């Protein structure tokens, strides 16, 4: 029965007072109101906050119900509201990022476990066999049965460094899956990044370029990857992401080796790579770290390229990216992105 007489609130970014209250409430539950959330729902009894939940794109998170209000169906109310809001925003495939203790509650609500890290986090989705179907589809496109390798790249944008890494990996492998991060949080949009990888690796015949979907390095599997500040959660997020790779991608695609570019600059990626060297071998997957290709004695990286683009040093960029990427940068769409990098308003 529901005669609790609670008041519903939907938080806007401007509502600092209520945001503060939600933040403090979550903190008591060992959570925090994360930076990236774009929709927060709260239930208030009189003047006290008793339940809340948030949405970040297609991920439900920061869900908490006060101890003395549990078992009154408030979690269902919160989740319903979030699912509804997500659906209105055109997002039907949803994920929940929560504590393992809540697994049963969300399973009852029609969510399916993807991966749990003992006493840390559990990730669920609302599609039965969602991840398996996703990886199986990749498998179907590959038409390859033997032992394969994989590399996961963001390519913001695709450089000679990425090209070199993929060429090396392809040469050493019978077949190589190139998985391009789908999450649209980089300056270069996901579809552009994917296209540039495809074009720049067109000469390689034993590879398949595919998107990672929501299942690798996404705001669902690795939320802290996209946060500006480095958070303490990075290590457990990285572990979750790698466990998903090892438990779904590797067995279905028969991956025995994962390639990764050496990471001299970005500490976050470095944490990820180090974690990779611990976790994947325990599943019998070899991690091969390829040293970066250098130009003028400096390892080529996408951030270097972005820096040059920002300063309009296009001639120098030309030496660091494949011809296909350079050609794209010269198009109207490419210029648009360069303007965005410069912080200019795109010209209409």
């Amino acid at each position, binding site marked *: *029965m*529901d*005669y609790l*007489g609670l008041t519903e609130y939907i938080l806007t970014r401007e509502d600092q007072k209520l945001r503060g209250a939600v933040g403090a409430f979550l903190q008591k539950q060992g959570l925090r109101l994360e930076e990236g959330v774009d929709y927060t729902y709260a239930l208030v009894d*009189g003047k006290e906050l008793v339940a809340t939940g948030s949405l970040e794109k297609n991920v439900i998170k920061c869900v908490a119900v006060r101890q003395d209000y549990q078992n009154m169906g408030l979690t269902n109310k919160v989740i319903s509201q979030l699912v509804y809001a997500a659906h209105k925003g055109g997002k039907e495939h949803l994920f929940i990022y929560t504590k393992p203790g809540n697994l049963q509650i969300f399973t009852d609500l029609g969510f399916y476990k993807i991966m749990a890290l003992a006493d840390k986090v559990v990730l669920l989705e609302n599609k039965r066999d969602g991840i398996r179907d996703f990886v199986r589809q990749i498998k179907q496109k590959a038409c390859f049965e033997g032992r394969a390798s994989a590399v996961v790249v963001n390519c913001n944008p695709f450089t000679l460094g990425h090209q070199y890494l993929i060429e090396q990996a392809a040469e050493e492998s019978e077949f190589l899956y190139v998985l391009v991060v789908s999450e649209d949080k980089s300056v270069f949009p996901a579809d552009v990044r994917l296209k540039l990888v495809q074009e720049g690796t067109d000469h390689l015949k034993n590879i398949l370029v595919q998107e990672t979907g929501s299942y690798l390095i996404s705001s669902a599997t690795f939320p802290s990857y996209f946060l500006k500040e480095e958070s303490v959660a990075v290590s457990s997020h990285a572990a979750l992401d790698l466990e998903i790779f090892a438990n779904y991608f590797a067995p279905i695609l028969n991956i025995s080796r994962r390639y990764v570019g050496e990471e001299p600059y970005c500490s976050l990626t470095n944490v990820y790579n180090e974690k990779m060297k611990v976790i994947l071998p325990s599943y019998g997957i070899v991690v091969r770290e390829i040293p970066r290709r250098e130009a003028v004695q400096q390892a080529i990286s996408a951030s270097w390229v972005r820096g040059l683009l920002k300063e309009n040093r296009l001639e120098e960029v030309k030496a660091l990216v494949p011809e296909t990427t350079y050609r794209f940068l010269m198009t109207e769409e490419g210029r648009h992105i360069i303007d965005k990098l410069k912080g200019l308003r795109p010209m209409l």
Partner: protein
Amino acid sequence: MFKLRRTMMYVPGNNPSMVKDAHIFGADTVMFDLEDSVALNEKDAARLLVYNALKRLDYEGTEIAVRINGLDTPYGREDLEAIVRVRPHIIRLPKAETSKDVRDIEAIIEEIEAKEGIPVGSIQLMAAVESARGVLNAREIAAASKRLVGIAIGAEDFVTDMQTTRSLDGMELLAARSQVLLAARNAGIYALDTVFSDVNNEEGFINEVKHIKQLGFDGKSVINPRQIDVVHRIYTPTPQEIHRSERILKASEEAARKGSGVVSLDGKMVDKPIIERAQRVLSLATAAGTYELEGGEAIAY
């Protein structure tokens, strides 16, 4: 026996668990709400939920009312199209301002009744006044239609209109409550009081119920099942009241048998209004199940 309307319980129209169990708490009338408790983007969902529930569920004889959205909203007409067809006992019109509001709604109901072969006039109406204008027009509103069985006051909107807020002693509502009562009694229909929203303040609620009972209201709107028993307790005559009323009526019957025009009890003369009140007390006690009426005459509106 006359119909008790001591409690009218609001049930948000878009909540299936509340809609399906609405009648089990013993309110005299259950009112499914399509108006204020339903978010704008859920109006369609609530309308269909109440429609299907009334079509399929058995509320075991409990009086059912549905509060629709006003005809001045994009939802009111559609609400009527749906709800009239599933024949609740009462349709409640919110925010009535003039007698025309009642007549407009009546015309549409009549049209739908005719179309569907429902006996014209079978659906009753209740109007709520929730503004200064509505309260001032209460007299005409209460007398606007034969379908009207009651008039209610909605205090939240009213106090806002009056540029004040609600207080525990209800001083700001006294004039309006009195006006609504006068209008109801003049038209011979029920007068129903507004909700008391602080469910946790039981003492405040008890005081308010005593207050409106004393003013003369037939009952009160409630928003929580917990409030039902409180109202019923206060509205149920005490054994002393019942006993005294019984004696008054006996004396009155005695006098009638003797052909005497004067009724007296314990050496005091008993006036006609006192006899009527005694009849009412016994009817109320009978309806509440605390008194077995033997051939007494019940008051009915």
